[in-house]
Protein backbone atom coordinates (compact mmCIF):
# COMPACT_ATOMS: atom_id res chain seq x y z
CA UNK A 1 0.00 0.00 0.00
CA UNK A 2 1.41 3.42 -0.88
CA UNK A 3 1.83 6.03 1.82
CA UNK A 4 2.05 9.78 1.41
CA UNK A 5 4.09 12.22 3.46
CA UNK A 6 2.63 15.72 3.91
CA UNK A 7 5.99 17.33 3.14
CA UNK A 8 5.77 16.13 -0.46
CA UNK A 9 2.45 17.86 -1.09
CA UNK A 10 1.68 21.43 -2.10
CA UNK A 11 -0.59 24.42 -2.07
CA UNK A 12 -0.91 26.07 -5.48
CA UNK A 13 -2.94 29.23 -6.03
CA UNK A 14 -4.01 31.63 -8.76
CA UNK A 15 -6.43 34.56 -8.95
CA UNK A 16 -9.61 33.81 -10.88
CA UNK A 17 -10.60 35.98 -13.84
CA UNK A 18 -14.22 35.20 -13.11
CA UNK A 19 -14.88 34.71 -9.40
CA UNK A 20 -15.99 31.15 -8.76
CA UNK A 21 -14.68 29.82 -12.07
CA UNK A 22 -11.69 27.61 -11.41
CA UNK A 23 -8.33 28.08 -13.08
CA UNK A 24 -5.30 25.81 -13.09
CA UNK A 25 -3.08 27.26 -10.37
CA UNK A 26 0.51 28.09 -11.27
CA UNK A 27 1.84 29.70 -8.09
CA UNK A 28 3.16 27.31 -5.48
CA UNK A 29 3.10 28.67 -1.93
CA UNK A 30 5.07 26.71 0.68
CA UNK A 31 2.73 25.66 3.46
CA UNK A 32 3.22 25.68 7.20
CA UNK A 33 -0.09 23.89 7.75
CA UNK A 34 -3.62 23.70 6.41
CA UNK A 35 -6.99 22.49 7.60
CA UNK A 36 -9.15 22.98 4.54
CA UNK A 37 -12.09 20.66 4.39
CA UNK A 38 -15.45 20.11 2.83
CA UNK A 39 -18.19 20.00 5.41
CA UNK A 40 -20.77 17.83 3.67
CA UNK A 41 -23.36 17.89 6.45
CA UNK A 42 -24.59 14.38 5.78
CA UNK A 43 -27.48 13.42 8.00
CA UNK A 44 -28.94 10.05 8.86
CA UNK A 45 -32.07 9.18 6.92
CA UNK A 46 -34.52 8.85 9.85
CA UNK A 47 -37.61 8.11 7.81
CA UNK A 48 -39.63 5.31 9.46
CA UNK A 49 -39.67 2.26 7.24
CA UNK A 50 -40.04 -0.71 9.56
CA UNK A 51 -36.39 -1.14 10.45
CA UNK A 52 -35.25 -1.68 14.03
CA UNK A 53 -32.31 0.71 13.67
CA UNK A 54 -31.66 4.43 13.64
CA UNK A 55 -31.18 4.65 9.92
CA UNK A 56 -30.13 2.78 6.84
CA UNK A 57 -28.59 5.56 4.81
CA UNK A 58 -27.27 9.10 4.81
CA UNK A 59 -28.88 12.04 3.08
CA UNK A 60 -27.07 14.98 1.61
CA UNK A 61 -26.94 18.33 3.34
CA UNK A 62 -25.85 21.79 2.36
CA UNK A 63 -22.09 21.90 1.94
CA UNK A 64 -19.44 24.32 3.11
CA UNK A 65 -15.81 24.39 2.15
CA UNK A 66 -13.61 26.22 4.60
CA UNK A 67 -10.56 26.05 6.81
CA UNK A 68 -7.26 27.66 7.58
CA UNK A 69 -4.10 28.04 5.57
CA UNK A 70 -0.92 28.97 7.41
CA UNK A 71 2.06 30.29 5.45
CA UNK A 72 5.15 32.33 6.14
CA UNK A 73 4.66 35.76 4.63
CA UNK A 74 7.47 36.38 2.19
CA UNK A 75 7.23 39.53 0.06
CA UNK A 76 5.98 37.65 -3.02
CA UNK A 77 3.26 35.49 -1.52
CA UNK A 78 2.23 38.31 0.82
CA UNK A 79 1.19 40.17 -2.35
CA UNK A 80 -1.35 37.45 -3.05
CA UNK A 81 -2.54 37.48 0.53
CA UNK A 82 -3.14 41.23 0.44
CA UNK A 83 -4.76 40.81 -2.98
CA UNK A 84 -7.25 38.41 -1.41
CA UNK A 85 -8.03 40.71 1.51
CA UNK A 86 -7.89 44.19 -0.03
CA UNK A 87 -8.30 45.89 -3.40
CA UNK A 88 -5.09 46.20 -5.38
CA UNK A 89 -4.38 49.44 -7.16
CA UNK A 90 -2.10 50.08 -10.12
CA UNK A 91 1.35 48.53 -9.82
CA UNK A 92 4.36 50.68 -10.58
CA UNK A 93 8.06 49.88 -10.89
CA UNK A 94 9.88 47.14 -12.73
CA UNK A 95 11.97 44.03 -12.24
CA UNK A 96 15.14 46.05 -11.63
CA UNK A 97 13.76 48.40 -8.98
CA UNK A 98 11.06 46.10 -7.69
CA UNK A 99 7.33 46.40 -8.17
CA UNK A 100 5.24 48.58 -5.86
CA UNK A 101 1.70 47.39 -5.28
CA UNK A 102 -0.75 49.66 -3.44
CA UNK A 103 -3.72 48.18 -1.62
CA UNK A 104 -6.79 49.92 -0.24
CA UNK A 105 -9.82 48.77 1.70
CA UNK A 106 -12.20 46.91 -0.58
CA UNK A 107 -13.06 43.52 -1.98
CA UNK A 108 -10.17 41.21 -2.69
CA UNK A 109 -9.86 38.80 -5.57
CA UNK A 110 -11.27 35.29 -5.59
CA UNK A 111 -8.66 32.59 -5.98
CA UNK A 112 -8.38 28.96 -6.89
CA UNK A 113 -6.50 26.91 -4.30
CA UNK A 114 -5.27 23.44 -5.05
CA UNK A 115 -3.90 21.13 -2.39
CA UNK A 116 -2.22 17.85 -3.16
CA UNK A 117 -3.44 15.18 -0.79
CA UNK A 118 -1.04 12.49 -1.82
CA UNK A 119 -2.90 10.32 -4.25
CA UNK A 120 -5.15 13.05 -5.59
CA UNK A 121 -5.43 16.81 -5.83
CA UNK A 122 -8.24 18.74 -4.21
CA UNK A 123 -9.10 21.99 -5.92
CA UNK A 124 -11.12 24.69 -4.21
CA UNK A 125 -12.53 27.44 -6.38
CA UNK A 126 -14.11 30.76 -5.51
CA UNK A 127 -11.78 31.02 -2.52
CA UNK A 128 -12.28 34.16 -0.43
CA UNK A 129 -10.48 35.24 2.71
CA UNK A 130 -12.67 35.70 5.75
CA UNK A 131 -9.78 36.76 7.94
CA UNK A 132 -6.04 37.21 7.64
CA UNK A 133 -4.12 37.12 10.88
CA UNK A 134 -0.52 38.32 10.70
CA UNK A 135 1.67 37.32 13.64
CA UNK A 136 5.34 36.72 14.37
CA UNK A 137 5.95 33.32 15.99
CA UNK A 138 9.73 32.83 16.22
CA UNK A 139 10.06 36.39 14.95
CA UNK A 140 8.94 35.35 11.45
CA UNK A 141 5.91 36.91 9.81
CA UNK A 142 3.29 34.20 9.58
CA UNK A 143 -0.17 34.59 8.11
CA UNK A 144 -3.13 32.47 9.02
CA UNK A 145 -5.84 32.73 6.41
CA UNK A 146 -9.37 31.70 7.28
CA UNK A 147 -10.99 31.03 3.95
CA UNK A 148 -14.39 30.13 2.57
CA UNK A 149 -14.85 28.72 -0.88
CA UNK A 150 -17.63 28.18 -3.40
CA UNK A 151 -16.84 24.56 -4.16
CA UNK A 152 -14.31 21.83 -4.63
CA UNK A 153 -13.39 19.14 -7.11
CA UNK A 154 -11.13 16.23 -6.35
CA UNK A 155 -12.47 12.72 -6.85
CA UNK A 156 -15.47 11.25 -8.60
CA UNK A 157 -16.79 8.12 -10.18
CA UNK A 158 -17.70 7.10 -13.71
CA UNK A 159 -21.41 7.48 -14.43
CA UNK A 160 -21.63 5.78 -17.84
CA UNK A 161 -19.46 2.80 -18.82
CA UNK A 162 -16.68 3.53 -21.30
CA UNK A 163 -15.52 1.04 -23.90
CA UNK A 164 -13.33 1.27 -26.99
CA UNK A 165 -11.99 4.49 -28.46
CA UNK A 166 -13.76 7.22 -26.52
CA UNK A 167 -13.45 11.01 -26.42
CA UNK A 168 -15.60 11.75 -23.38
CA UNK A 169 -16.20 10.45 -19.89
CA UNK A 170 -19.32 11.11 -17.89
CA UNK A 171 -19.16 11.60 -14.14
CA UNK A 172 -21.68 10.11 -11.78
CA UNK A 173 -24.04 12.62 -10.14
CA UNK A 174 -24.06 11.19 -6.61
CA UNK A 175 -21.99 14.02 -5.13
CA UNK A 176 -23.38 16.84 -7.22
CA UNK A 177 -25.55 17.36 -10.27
CA UNK A 178 -22.65 19.27 -11.83
CA UNK A 179 -19.79 16.94 -10.93
CA UNK A 180 -17.34 18.36 -13.48
CA UNK A 181 -17.54 21.83 -11.92
CA UNK A 182 -14.06 23.02 -11.05
CA UNK A 183 -12.31 21.05 -13.76
CA UNK A 184 -10.53 23.05 -16.42
CA UNK A 185 -9.30 22.38 -19.94
CA UNK A 186 -5.69 21.26 -19.54
CA UNK A 187 -6.32 19.36 -16.32
CA UNK A 188 -5.09 15.80 -16.10
CA UNK A 189 -7.55 13.33 -14.63
CA UNK A 190 -6.78 9.74 -13.79
CA UNK A 191 -9.12 6.81 -14.28
CA UNK A 192 -7.77 3.37 -13.51
CA UNK A 193 -4.36 3.23 -15.12
CA UNK A 194 -5.10 5.93 -17.70
CA UNK A 195 -4.27 9.62 -17.54
CA UNK A 196 -6.35 11.96 -19.67
CA UNK A 197 -5.65 15.60 -20.46
CA UNK A 198 -8.94 17.45 -20.72
CA UNK A 199 -9.72 19.27 -23.95
CA UNK A 200 -13.25 20.22 -22.91
CA UNK A 201 -15.46 20.46 -19.86
CA UNK A 202 -19.08 20.09 -20.83
CA UNK A 203 -21.37 22.89 -19.69
CA UNK A 204 -24.03 20.28 -18.95
CA UNK A 205 -22.06 19.44 -15.86
CA UNK A 206 -21.41 15.72 -16.33
CA UNK A 207 -18.92 15.10 -19.13
CA UNK A 208 -15.33 15.94 -19.89
CA UNK A 209 -13.60 15.57 -23.26
CA UNK A 210 -10.14 14.49 -24.37
CA UNK A 211 -8.39 13.19 -27.46
CA UNK A 212 -9.59 9.77 -28.57
CA UNK A 213 -8.30 7.13 -26.18
CA UNK A 214 -9.01 3.42 -25.90
CA UNK A 215 -10.60 2.84 -22.51
CA UNK A 216 -12.62 0.09 -20.89
CA UNK A 217 -14.13 1.02 -17.55
CA UNK A 218 -17.33 0.13 -15.76
CA UNK A 219 -19.75 2.42 -13.99
CA UNK A 220 -18.37 3.36 -10.58
CA UNK A 221 -14.70 3.39 -11.60
CA UNK A 222 -12.88 6.02 -9.59
CA UNK A 223 -11.67 9.19 -11.27
CA UNK A 224 -9.49 11.80 -9.64
CA UNK A 225 -7.68 15.01 -10.38
CA UNK A 226 -3.99 14.30 -10.80
CA UNK A 227 -1.73 16.36 -8.52
CA UNK A 228 0.53 18.84 -10.23
CA UNK A 229 4.28 18.51 -10.27
CA UNK A 230 5.63 21.12 -7.88
CA UNK A 231 7.71 23.99 -9.24
CA UNK A 232 9.11 26.50 -6.80
CA UNK A 233 10.22 30.00 -7.72
CA UNK A 234 13.16 31.62 -5.96
CA UNK A 235 11.83 31.80 -2.43
CA UNK A 236 12.51 34.94 -0.46
CA UNK A 237 12.82 35.06 3.31
CA UNK A 238 9.69 35.96 5.22
CA UNK A 239 9.48 39.40 6.74
CA UNK A 240 10.93 39.39 10.25
CA UNK A 241 9.76 41.22 13.36
CA UNK A 242 13.37 42.26 13.81
CA UNK A 243 13.18 44.21 10.55
CA UNK A 244 9.88 45.90 11.41
CA UNK A 245 9.60 49.48 12.58
CA UNK A 246 6.39 50.43 14.36
CA UNK A 247 5.53 54.09 14.45
CA UNK A 248 2.87 55.45 16.80
CA UNK A 249 1.66 59.01 16.49
CA UNK A 250 -1.27 61.33 16.85
CA UNK A 251 -2.13 60.90 13.19
CA UNK A 252 -0.98 58.94 10.15
CA UNK A 253 1.65 61.49 9.21
CA UNK A 254 3.23 61.46 12.66
CA UNK A 255 3.06 57.66 12.87
CA UNK A 256 4.71 57.24 9.48
CA UNK A 257 7.44 59.68 10.42
CA UNK A 258 8.01 57.76 13.65
CA UNK A 259 8.25 54.50 11.73
CA UNK A 260 10.90 56.02 9.52
CA UNK A 261 13.83 55.41 11.86
CA UNK A 262 14.82 53.06 14.69
CA UNK A 263 15.39 56.05 16.96
CA UNK A 264 11.78 57.17 16.69
CA UNK A 265 10.01 53.83 16.27
CA UNK A 266 8.31 52.18 19.22
CA UNK A 267 9.86 48.91 20.37
CA UNK A 268 7.19 46.24 20.43
CA UNK A 269 7.72 42.73 21.71
CA UNK A 270 4.66 41.12 20.28
CA UNK A 271 2.55 42.17 17.35
CA UNK A 272 -0.51 40.76 15.67
CA UNK A 273 -2.61 42.28 12.94
CA UNK A 274 -6.03 40.91 12.06
CA UNK A 275 -7.78 41.95 8.87
CA UNK A 276 -11.33 40.70 8.59
CA UNK A 277 -13.80 40.77 5.71
CA UNK A 278 -16.93 39.31 7.38
CA UNK A 279 -17.94 37.30 4.35
CA UNK A 280 -21.51 36.54 3.40
CA UNK A 281 -21.38 32.85 2.60
CA UNK A 282 -24.71 31.15 2.62
CA UNK A 283 -26.36 28.11 1.18
CA UNK A 284 -29.50 28.57 -0.81
CA UNK A 285 -31.16 27.59 -4.02
CA UNK A 286 -29.12 26.81 -7.12
CA UNK A 287 -26.42 24.75 -5.42
CA UNK A 288 -25.51 22.52 -2.49
CA UNK A 289 -22.39 24.68 -2.16
CA UNK A 290 -22.47 28.35 -1.11
CA UNK A 291 -24.24 30.15 -3.93
CA UNK A 292 -21.99 33.15 -3.72
CA UNK A 293 -19.52 34.67 -1.31
CA UNK A 294 -19.55 38.41 -0.80
CA UNK A 295 -17.44 40.57 1.53
CA UNK A 296 -19.46 42.61 3.97
CA UNK A 297 -18.18 45.26 6.40
CA UNK A 298 -14.39 45.09 6.72
CA UNK A 299 -12.68 45.55 10.06
CA UNK A 300 -9.23 45.24 11.57
CA UNK A 301 -7.59 44.98 14.94
CA UNK A 302 -4.07 45.25 16.31
CA UNK A 303 -2.58 43.74 19.41
CA UNK A 304 0.88 44.58 20.63
CA UNK A 305 3.04 44.52 23.68
CA UNK A 306 5.36 47.36 24.64
CA UNK A 307 7.10 48.20 27.88
CA UNK A 308 5.32 50.70 30.09
CA UNK A 309 7.17 54.02 29.96
CA UNK A 310 4.57 56.42 31.32
CA UNK A 311 0.84 56.77 31.86
CA UNK A 312 0.13 58.05 28.34
CA UNK A 313 -1.33 54.85 26.95
CA UNK A 314 -3.55 54.29 29.96
CA UNK A 315 -4.87 57.80 29.49
CA UNK A 316 -5.41 57.16 25.80
CA UNK A 317 -7.28 53.98 26.73
CA UNK A 318 -9.57 55.69 29.23
CA UNK A 319 -10.16 58.75 27.07
CA UNK A 320 -10.57 56.85 23.79
CA UNK A 321 -7.85 59.00 22.27
CA UNK A 322 -7.16 58.68 18.57
CA UNK A 323 -3.73 57.38 17.64
CA UNK A 324 -2.30 56.17 14.37
CA UNK A 325 0.08 53.28 13.76
CA UNK A 326 2.35 52.70 10.79
CA UNK A 327 4.22 49.42 10.46
CA UNK A 328 7.11 49.22 8.03
CA UNK A 329 8.66 45.81 7.42
CA UNK A 330 11.85 45.71 5.38
CA UNK A 331 13.25 42.74 3.51
CA UNK A 332 16.17 42.13 1.23
CA UNK A 333 17.50 44.69 -1.19
CA UNK A 334 16.17 44.36 -4.71
CA UNK A 335 18.21 46.78 -6.81
CA UNK A 336 21.86 46.01 -7.31
CA UNK A 337 22.91 49.34 -5.77
CA UNK A 338 20.76 48.60 -2.69
CA UNK A 339 18.58 51.66 -3.34
CA UNK A 340 15.33 49.63 -3.28
CA UNK A 341 14.28 46.75 -1.10
CA UNK A 342 11.35 44.53 -0.27
CA UNK A 343 9.07 46.68 1.79
CA UNK A 344 5.69 46.25 3.42
CA UNK A 345 3.98 49.35 4.75
CA UNK A 346 0.76 49.08 6.71
CA UNK A 347 -0.90 52.31 7.79
CA UNK A 348 -3.71 52.41 10.29
CA UNK A 349 -5.05 55.93 10.30
CA UNK A 350 -7.16 55.89 13.43
CA UNK A 351 -6.72 53.33 16.18
CA UNK A 352 -8.19 53.43 19.66
CA UNK A 353 -7.48 51.18 22.59
CA UNK A 354 -10.04 48.52 23.41
CA UNK A 355 -7.78 47.14 26.12
CA UNK A 356 -4.62 48.36 27.81
CA UNK A 357 -3.41 46.07 30.56
CA UNK A 358 -0.58 46.92 32.94
CA UNK A 359 -0.37 43.60 34.76
CA UNK A 360 1.97 43.04 37.67
CA UNK A 361 3.83 39.76 37.54
CA UNK A 362 6.61 38.71 39.88
CA UNK A 363 10.00 39.65 38.48
CA UNK A 364 8.59 41.09 35.27
CA UNK A 365 8.76 44.54 33.78
CA UNK A 366 5.36 46.16 33.51
CA UNK A 367 4.09 46.32 29.94
CA UNK A 368 1.33 48.01 28.01
CA UNK A 369 -0.48 44.99 26.59
CA UNK A 370 -2.68 46.62 24.05
CA UNK A 371 -5.57 45.78 21.79
CA UNK A 372 -6.53 48.42 19.25
CA UNK A 373 -9.67 48.67 17.20
CA UNK A 374 -8.88 50.07 13.77
CA UNK A 375 -11.37 52.82 13.03
CA UNK A 376 -12.28 54.83 9.99
CA UNK A 377 -10.56 58.21 10.05
CA UNK A 378 -12.78 61.00 8.79
CA UNK A 379 -9.90 63.42 8.20
CA UNK A 380 -7.88 60.98 6.10
CA UNK A 381 -11.04 59.46 4.63
CA UNK A 382 -9.78 55.94 5.17
CA UNK A 383 -9.20 53.38 7.91
CA UNK A 384 -6.03 51.85 6.55
CA UNK A 385 -4.00 51.09 3.48
CA UNK A 386 -1.05 48.96 2.52
CA UNK A 387 1.84 49.08 0.12
CA UNK A 388 4.15 46.27 -0.88
CA UNK A 389 7.40 46.35 -2.82
CA UNK A 390 8.50 42.95 -4.13
CA UNK A 391 9.80 41.11 -7.20
CA UNK A 392 6.40 40.05 -8.55
CA UNK A 393 4.92 41.90 -11.53
CA UNK A 394 1.44 43.31 -11.06
CA UNK A 395 0.07 41.16 -13.89
CA UNK A 396 0.45 38.07 -11.68
CA UNK A 397 -2.20 39.31 -9.25
Amino acid at each position, binding site marked *: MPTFLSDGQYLAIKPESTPGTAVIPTIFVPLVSESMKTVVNHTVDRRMKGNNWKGNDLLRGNRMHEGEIVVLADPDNLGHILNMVMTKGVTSGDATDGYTHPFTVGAGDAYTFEISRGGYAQRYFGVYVEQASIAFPDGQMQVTLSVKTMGQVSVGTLGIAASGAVTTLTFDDTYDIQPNRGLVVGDVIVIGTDELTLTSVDSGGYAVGFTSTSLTYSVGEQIYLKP*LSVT*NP*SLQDPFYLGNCLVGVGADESAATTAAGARSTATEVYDLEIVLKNNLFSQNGSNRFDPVQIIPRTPEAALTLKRLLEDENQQTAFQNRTKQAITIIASGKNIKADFSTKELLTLKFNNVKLIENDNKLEVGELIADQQSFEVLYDESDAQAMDASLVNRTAGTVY
Partner: protein
Amino acid sequence: MSKKVKNISGQRLAIPRVGVAQAGEIITVPDGFNNPNFEPVKSGESKESTTQKEAAPKQKEDKKNEAE
Protein backbone atom coordinates in the same frame (compact mmCIF):
# COMPACT_ATOMS: atom_id res chain seq x y z
CA MET B 1 10.14 7.42 -20.00
CA SER B 2 10.80 11.12 -20.18
CA LYS B 3 9.70 14.14 -22.18
CA LYS B 4 10.92 17.64 -22.96
CA VAL B 5 9.14 20.69 -21.67
CA LYS B 6 9.75 24.43 -21.83
CA ASN B 7 9.55 26.76 -18.86
CA ILE B 8 6.95 29.37 -19.87
CA SER B 9 6.56 30.93 -16.41
CA GLY B 10 9.00 33.74 -17.08
CA GLN B 11 10.96 32.90 -13.96
CA ARG B 12 13.50 30.45 -12.63
CA LEU B 13 11.82 27.41 -11.17
CA ALA B 14 13.16 24.65 -8.96
CA ILE B 15 11.59 21.27 -9.61
CA PRO B 16 11.89 18.73 -6.81
CA ARG B 17 13.80 15.61 -7.87
CA VAL B 18 14.47 17.08 -11.33
CA GLY B 19 16.57 20.24 -11.05
CA VAL B 20 16.27 23.89 -11.94
CA ALA B 21 14.77 25.39 -15.08
CA GLN B 22 15.57 28.96 -16.03
CA ALA B 23 12.89 31.07 -17.74
CA GLY B 24 12.43 29.79 -21.29
CA GLU B 25 14.67 26.81 -20.75
CA ILE B 26 13.86 23.42 -22.22
CA ILE B 27 14.47 20.52 -19.88
CA THR B 28 13.80 16.82 -19.71
CA VAL B 29 11.31 15.65 -17.11
CA PRO B 30 9.70 12.33 -16.21
CA ASP B 31 6.79 11.35 -18.42
CA GLY B 32 4.19 11.98 -15.72
CA PHE B 33 5.32 15.57 -15.16
CA ASN B 34 2.22 17.73 -14.90
CA ASN B 35 2.68 21.47 -14.45
CA PRO B 36 1.07 24.46 -16.18
CA ASN B 37 4.28 26.51 -15.92
CA PHE B 38 5.71 24.27 -18.64
CA GLU B 39 4.56 23.38 -22.13
CA PRO B 40 5.47 20.26 -24.07
CA VAL B 41 8.20 20.57 -26.69
CA LYS B 42 8.11 18.51 -29.86
CA SER B 43 11.32 16.67 -30.62
CA GLY B 44 13.76 18.77 -32.67
CA GLU B 45 11.93 21.98 -31.85
CA SER B 46 14.75 23.34 -29.75
CA LYS B 47 18.04 22.28 -28.29
CA GLU B 48 18.10 20.97 -24.79
CA SER B 49 19.88 23.01 -22.17
CA THR B 50 22.81 21.96 -20.07
CA THR B 51 20.71 22.15 -16.93
CA GLN B 52 18.52 19.37 -18.18
CA LYS B 53 21.55 17.23 -18.88
CA GLU B 54 22.52 17.64 -15.25
CA ALA B 55 19.02 16.72 -14.21
CA ALA B 56 18.86 13.54 -16.27
CA PRO B 57 21.26 11.43 -14.14
CA LYS B 58 19.28 12.52 -11.06
CA GLN B 59 16.09 11.14 -12.61
CA LYS B 60 17.80 7.86 -13.36
CA GLU B 61 19.01 7.73 -9.79
CA ASP B 62 15.50 8.38 -8.51
CA LYS B 63 14.06 5.64 -10.69
CA LYS B 64 16.72 3.29 -9.43
CA ASN B 65 15.85 4.21 -5.86
CA GLU B 66 12.16 3.72 -6.54
CA ALA B 67 12.87 0.27 -8.00
CA GLU B 68 14.78 -0.62 -4.88
